[in-house]
């Protein structure tokens, strides 16, 4: 009887999304009177046992096989399903990012169990099953749902669940699991190509300067680029900008683009459709520049300037430069 939380290291210990998985998993385990155990892919030596102990996780399972060193979704999911049986898991929880959702979907297909993606909270019900809240429309709507399943397969909406440290540190025992993957399950296996990435990454930028329809065309981005340069910011755009072909899709902020979490999002000429807001609701502060005081973004932003970005941005750039020039 245990809740399994699938976690990963990102080079600096547990990934931020994994800390959220643990917080979610602790709450679910508590509601069902069971315990939480962590699962990782890789050798036991790579398990951040000290960190897991600090998050109150008494057991960690390292799924280790030379054949699973590369990401092979079906073989990884098959290994997870074996562990679910071995430890009589009542739930498996993974991060609701692309890989977490993919892996859990394979686990769901292999086991024939239902799966609830992007959950915000879940609690066991006295009679069995669990009640949960999950995101729809990338978080613009919430769904209250009931899950009846022998094992609850859940992914966590990582932008909506806080990573809290639990009260009681434990010591973590690491158990090694050595599955024997079948060749058929290794048919699909990822090769990772060299890290790209010149410039500031949109997903992790501290400041994002966003441009929407109000920019007017591909040429209109020069002042936004200049402002971004002065602020050390990344440039993001709304969906209309990428579907017009004004900017590449890699710069899109929103439900079908990148979710951003900057200190400041400066949204210029963006009306604020829900699909866009789903991508920037993780920003700490939003400043909107828009000609229309009735635009939806004005009621979601903290600060606003009413006006044409083609006048406001050059004036702002000039003001910042003037400031730099002062002794």
């Amino acid at each position, binding site marked *: 009887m245990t809740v399994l939380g699938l976690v990963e290291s990102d080079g600096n210990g547990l990934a931020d999304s994994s800390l959220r998985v643990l917080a979610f998993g602790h709450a679910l385990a508590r509601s069902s009177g069971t315990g939480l155990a962590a699962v990782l892919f890789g050798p036991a030596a790579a398990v951040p046992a000290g960190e897991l102990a600090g998050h109150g996780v008494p057991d960690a399972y390292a799924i280790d096989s030379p054949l699973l060193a590369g990401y092979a*979704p079906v073989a990884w999911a098959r290994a997870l399903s074996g562990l679910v049986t071995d430890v009589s898991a009542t739930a498996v929880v993974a991060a609701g990012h*692309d890989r977490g959702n*993919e892996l*859990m*979907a*394979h686990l*769901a*297909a*292999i086991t024939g169990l*239902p*799966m609830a*993606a992007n959950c915000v909270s879940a609690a066991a019900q006295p009679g069995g099953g669990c009640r949960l809240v999950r*995101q729809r*429309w990338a978080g*613009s*709507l*919430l*769904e*209250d749902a*009931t*899950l009846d399943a022998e094992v609850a397969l859940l992914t966590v909406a990582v932008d909506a669940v806080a990573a809290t440290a639990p009260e009681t540190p434990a010591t973590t025992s690491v158990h090694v699991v050595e599955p024997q993957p079948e060749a058929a399950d290794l*048919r*699909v296996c*990822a*090769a*990772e*190509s*060299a890290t790209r*990435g010149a410039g500031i990454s949109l997903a992790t930028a*501290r400041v994002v300067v966003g441009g929407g329809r109000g920019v007017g065309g591909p040429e209109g981005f020069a002042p936004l680029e200049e402002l971004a340069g002065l*602020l050390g910011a990344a440039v993001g755009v709304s969906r209309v900008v*990428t*579907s017009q072909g004004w900017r590449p*899709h890699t710069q899109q902020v929103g439900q*079908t*683009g990148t979710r951003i979490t900057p*200190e*400041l999002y400066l949204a210029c000429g963006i*009306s604020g*459709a*829900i*699909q866009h807001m789903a991508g920037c609701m993780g920003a700490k*502060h939003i400043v909107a520049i828009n000609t229309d*005081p009735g*635009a*939806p973004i*004005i*009621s*979601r932003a*903290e*600060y*606003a*300037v*009413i*006006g044409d970005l083609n*006048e*406001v941005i050059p004036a*702002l750039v000039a003001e*910042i430069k003037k*400031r730099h020039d002062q002794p």
Partner: protein
Amino acid sequence: MDILVCVKRVPMVGGRIAVTPDGQDVDTRMSGFTVSPHEECAVEEAVQITERLGGTVTVLTLGPAEAMQQLRDMLALGAGRALLLETDGREWGPIATAAAIADAARRRAEGPEGPYGLLLFGNEAADTGDYQVGVRVAHTLGLPCVTGIKNLEITSGGARARREYRGSEEVFDIPLPAVISVKEGINLPRYPSLPGRLRAKRAAIDTLRPEWHSEGLRKDRLRVPAQEQHQAQVLGSGAEAAPALVRLLEELGILS
């Protein structure tokens, strides 16, 4: 290559989203319907592949009779055939949806035309975001599967599919037939041409009526999350607001 593309009819939502009084659906009285964005890109990708390599594109949706409109929209983009898995309008869960799609693919495989060479899906539907229908179809049909694909090449031996992962790129070489789910950004879908629209209007649409099944995950109700409804603090108008903006950037620690 003969390609099946699965799309979903979803409400067209703009500045706000509302729920019907019974909490069961998105209120669509003021909006129309469209196809999830990732799936529109899947149709474009399929059309581009068949333009290069020959073959047919069949677009499939599971939904009420009204979803024929979305199939016609996709025919106008260049798909050649359409298949409606007609429902009574109830929401279908991902398990039942995948079973119905796999069944339709199997019927085709058992017929004179043989199996599809490629099954394309969107990575996740815009509304329910279940992230699993394509994967379940792949397992039911015993096909390899990759999701979240942003670049696809058909090679002599199969397909090379690429996607982003933590700022780098993952590359998958997979044999065909396969199930591949794609993301917006893989291409820029074309606008429908006038001849395309006219052809779509007249096209025959095949229909199957699969049986609905309940599943373990049940929706109780939908709701709009509580959020502070406030009006932004207006710093000023036009170019004159620049000094106030700079002061704000200083206060927030963006400019030091």
